[in-house]
């Protein structure tokens, strides 16, 4: 029974992780790839780690795994945000079929240009 639950957790995690990988290859622009990988890999890794915690059934191991999961959940979105934002301001284009760009319409873009342009060595 426990093995089954572990297997389900591991299998599910693997599924999401692989889906993330496929998404990274298949999606047409950076922002969607980012979107896909952040969610899927976070969930995938968390599920697998959960399975592992169950497998060892040891307080120390569980503690460690909890730490990893907290950490991934905490950092993955921030990382995606940092990357996406930097990409956007450095001119990585949206997919050609994108329907809307509020950020481009705002003045934020120009402000960045002034600020960031001067730092290039």
């Amino acid at each position: 029974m426990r093995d089954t639950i572990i297997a389900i957790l591991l299998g599910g995690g693997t599924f999401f992780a692989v889906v993330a990988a496929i998404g990274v290859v298949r999606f047409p622009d950076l922002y969607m790839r980012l979107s896909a990988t952040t969610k899927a890999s976070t969930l995938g890794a968390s599920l697998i780690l959960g399975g592992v915690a169950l497998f060892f059934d040891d307080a120390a191991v569980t503690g460690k795994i909890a730490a990893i999961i907290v950490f991934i959940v905490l950092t993955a979105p921030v990382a995606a945000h940092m990357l996406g934002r930097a990409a956007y301001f450095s001119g990585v284009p949206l997919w050609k079929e994108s329907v809307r760009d509020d950020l481009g319409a705002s003045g934020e873009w120009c402000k960045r240009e002034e600020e960031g342009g001067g730092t290039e060595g």
Partner: protein
Amino acid sequence: MQSLLLATAVRLLLPLLLLFSLFLLLRGHNEPGGGFVGGLVAAAAFVLHALAHGVAGARRVLRVEPRQLVAAGLLTALASGVLSLTLGLPFLTGLWSTLPVPVIGHAGTPLLFDAGVYLVVAGMALMIVFSLMEE
């Protein structure tokens, strides 16, 4: 590179990472880890801080000069080795306390040595990154 999200996240991450780096250092003798990895993780914490809040901010939090960390680390490692000389034993001979200490197990000069490694590694990584970022 002001990012509110990063700044906030780093505020949470810094203590966590430092905690974890100490954990790696102290448990390294019995489980994966050790002074080197621990030191790098500690350095990573401050590098993140520097990326989010600027080097000046990171230096303020760190308070000591990274160079002093390096010196202190080398001194610690050297001292842990010289200690045995005073007992007529060869350089770097491990001396161990008889009483077990929580978390660490036994306490001994090799752990002191590892702490020296930790300090050197953290100090050097910060020295390098800070010098580069301050340019």
